């Protein structure tokens, strides 16, 4: 009975799908991965042209580093091997072999993910397959702004390349100097420009994916680069945000936006969250089409960034806090960013906007040149690294109705964190986010402590998730599931939906070699 489940033929899988839950439980109980042998390594070496820098053994410190995620919460879990293919053909050959031999793989890009999705798990000790060698930008159509590149291209390099020719890659994140576009696609990365430039998925015109069995799927990647094409099921969209569990993305064709000639930014401080909402509405009204991003930083994170001494802060939380108008949780800081085609027009819009909000803000600073513009963004992007340095950080990336942000934060503080009785110098809750997109990053840091604390975890989970779901929000707005949040999926989706997801996984990766233990819940 067990043997038919290990076959990858479609007919048998379809016959299995009549009663999926039973089959998948059984599959997981009998899920032997094979051990890595010398002859496996020989085959890999052959595929990679016997180049010693493309195949590293588990004992190599580089592999140990590659086995620990950015947050340090996961790993180092031992990996069996590290592979660095240089072409799609090599990725295909490697996967075909691993599929035959039933060897588990974790695809890895820049390893900047925050949910432990790109590192090996202790349970399976996967082979790490890094895409970093595939870093070529193949083409950029200068008239259409369509760029084609391999999955291992570092995001910032792609941004610079396109900007040189007047095009803007419609994605930006703090990790841009390290993250790779393949990883961005696999996690359907969000970032601050979601509202203006749309989701990353919406801008993907073509994709090249290598499936678990080594087959190469190409959707408008090599031959055709069109903005509009409706010739078939848009299967490529399925891979976006699938976190390497359905296939390995090796190439992408992306639509860019015209590079804005005029970029302006301001930091404003508000006394209360109600004022924040007023400023948000007026920004939409007066800045309109040029409004590109609005990022929030609360007093807690602002104070921590200020204290780190790394940045010249345009405003001081300490000074502002003494204003009597400042309410509980305040002052709140907003970074307002605009992109437009004409600096004079943009400045006129800004003048009208600033006049409209002058009574809604305590103070504000407008960047006078691009250096100031960039340093404002650096301040915003230093939020995550700042708390990460201070101690173990419990990170929750949620979506919820914008009007409820502060209300929910207060609820968490009063009902879950307050009762723990910790002092301000030992435990801090710092919050920031892409407020324009309704995305909040709720962070709790134990200052000076690097070990996870059970009582804190219990105070936070599963309360965070249930309270967010109760408010109709998302328990993972943009960071994804990885191995951090996959167990929560049954609270989010009903059995029909979950079942459908499992069916897709079984169809595309029947031997479960791609990124096991991630994304979908692992059944016990």
């Amino acid at each position, binding site marked *: 009975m067990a043997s038919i489940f290990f076959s990858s033929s479609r007919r048998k899988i379809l016959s299995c799908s009549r009663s999926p839950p039973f089959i998948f439980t059984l599959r997981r109980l009998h899920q032997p991965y094979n051990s890595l042998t010398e002859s496996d390594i020989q085959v890999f070496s052959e595929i990679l042209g016997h180049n010693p820098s493309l195949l590293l053994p588990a004992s190599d410190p580089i592999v140990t580093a590659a086995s620990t995620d950015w947050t340090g919460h996961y790993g180092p879990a031992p990996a069996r091997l590290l592979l660095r293919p240089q072409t799609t053909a090599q990725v295909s050959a490697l996967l075909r072999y691993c599929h035959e031999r039933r060897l588990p793989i974790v695809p890895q890009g820049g390893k900047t993910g925050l949910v432990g999705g790109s590192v090996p798990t202790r349970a399976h000790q996967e082979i790490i397959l890094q895409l970093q060698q595939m870093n070529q930008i193949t083409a950029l159509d200068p008239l259409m702004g369509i760029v084609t590149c391999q999955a291992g291209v570092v995001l910032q390099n792609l941004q610079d390349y396109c900007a*040189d020719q007047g095009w803007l890659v419609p994605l930006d994140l703090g990790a841009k100097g390290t993250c790779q576009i393949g990883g961005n696609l696999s996690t359907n990365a969000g970032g601050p420009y979601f509202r203006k430039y749309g989701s990353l998925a919406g801008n993907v015109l073509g994709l090249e994916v290598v499936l678990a069995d080594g087959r190469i799927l190409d959707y408008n990647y090599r031959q055709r680069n069109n903005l509009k094409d409706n010739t078939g099921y848009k299967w490529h969209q399925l891979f976006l945000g699938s976190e390497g569990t359905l296939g390995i993305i090796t190439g992408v064709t992306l639509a860019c936006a015209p590079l804005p*000639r*005029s*970029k302006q930014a*301001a930091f*404003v401080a508000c006394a209360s969250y109600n004022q924040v909402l007023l400023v948000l509405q007026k920004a939409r009204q007066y800045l309109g089409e040029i409004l590109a991003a609005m990022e929030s930083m609360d007093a807690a994170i602002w104070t921590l960034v200020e204290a780190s001494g790394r940045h*010249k802060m*345009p405003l001081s939380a300490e000074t502002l806090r003494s204003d009597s108008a400042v309410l509980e949780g305040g002052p709140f800081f907003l970074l307002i960013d605009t992109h437009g085609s004409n*600096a004079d027009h943009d*400045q006129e819009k800004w003048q009208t906007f*600033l006049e409209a909000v*002058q009574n809604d*803000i305590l*103070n*504000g*600073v*407008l*960047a*006078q*040149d*691009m*250096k*100031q*513009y*960039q340093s404002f963004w650096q301040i915003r992007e230093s939020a995550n690294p700042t708390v990460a340095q201070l101690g173990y950080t419990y990170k929750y990336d949620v979506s919820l109705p914008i009007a409820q942000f502060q209300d929910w934060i207060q609820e968490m503080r009063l009902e879950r964190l307050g009762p723990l009785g910790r002092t301000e110098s030992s435990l801090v809750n710092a919050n920031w986010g892409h407020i324009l997109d309704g995305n909040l990053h709720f962070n709790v840091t134990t200052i000076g402590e690097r070990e996870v604390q059970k009582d804190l975890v219990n105070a936070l989970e599963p309360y965070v998730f249930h309270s967010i779901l109760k408010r109709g929000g998302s328990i993972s707005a943009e960071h994804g599931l990885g191995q951090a949040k996959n167990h929560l999926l049954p609270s989010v989706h009903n059995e029909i939906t979950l079942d459908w997801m499992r069916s897709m996984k079984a169809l595309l990766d029947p031997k479960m070699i791609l990124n096991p233990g991630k994304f979908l819940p692992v059944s016990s």
Partner: protein
Amino acid sequence: MKILVGVKRVVDYAVKVRVAQGTVELANVKQSMNPFCEIAVEEAVRLKESNIAKEVIALSIGPKQCTETLRTALAMGCDRGIHIQTDLRTDYMELQPLAIAKLFQQIVAEKEKPDLILLGKQGIDSDCGQVGPMLAGLLQCPQVTFAAKVESKDNGFLVERETDAGTESIHIQTLPAVITCDLRLNEPRYATLPNIMKAKKKPVETILAETMGIDLTPRNPVLQVMEPPPRKDGIKVADVDALIDKLRNEAKVLA
């Protein structure tokens, strides 16, 4: 004491400069206050805040958009602005340091008569660093360039300046004098919104450059403008022997 500060509008420090039609492309390119002029404005405003100066006037030369540069200076704390309007390019292509120094000289000697003239050490477009010394020469007054520290002393200033050999202290005993400002002098402040609003009401006077009776023709013809050749990629060598070989035989820096 009255201070005159020069503020130059240049291609933004963070923008990549391109060559088009045989010259530096300015069309649709972001322009902002020269970073060294920002430092000069900051120093002038600090002198006013410590009651050494009573009035700070910002002076800019260039097209009508210079009023934006002057508004930044006003938002940082200058009291009023003077705009010498000209459509001649101020990045050395048309208006050159001697002409600029002469325009400054007229404003200083005949109009404002300030006690101190603060300038950035150089414009990041032309990189000449000449207006300060030329102006002091025309005015026959003391000059200290590359100032890293400015302190009031007696009726003058004690200035520390940066040289390749180290820091030098100079006591300016008579005024007026010209000081050009270097990077380490201070960190310019941000323009806060209330100050930006206030700056809109501060007076800015416009004077047309042609009416000042100064010969503005460039003295040095610009022969060619080109981008630097692209940098060659670096290479990795396998070992020290290979490194020595390359240094000796390719780069020819070893005997």
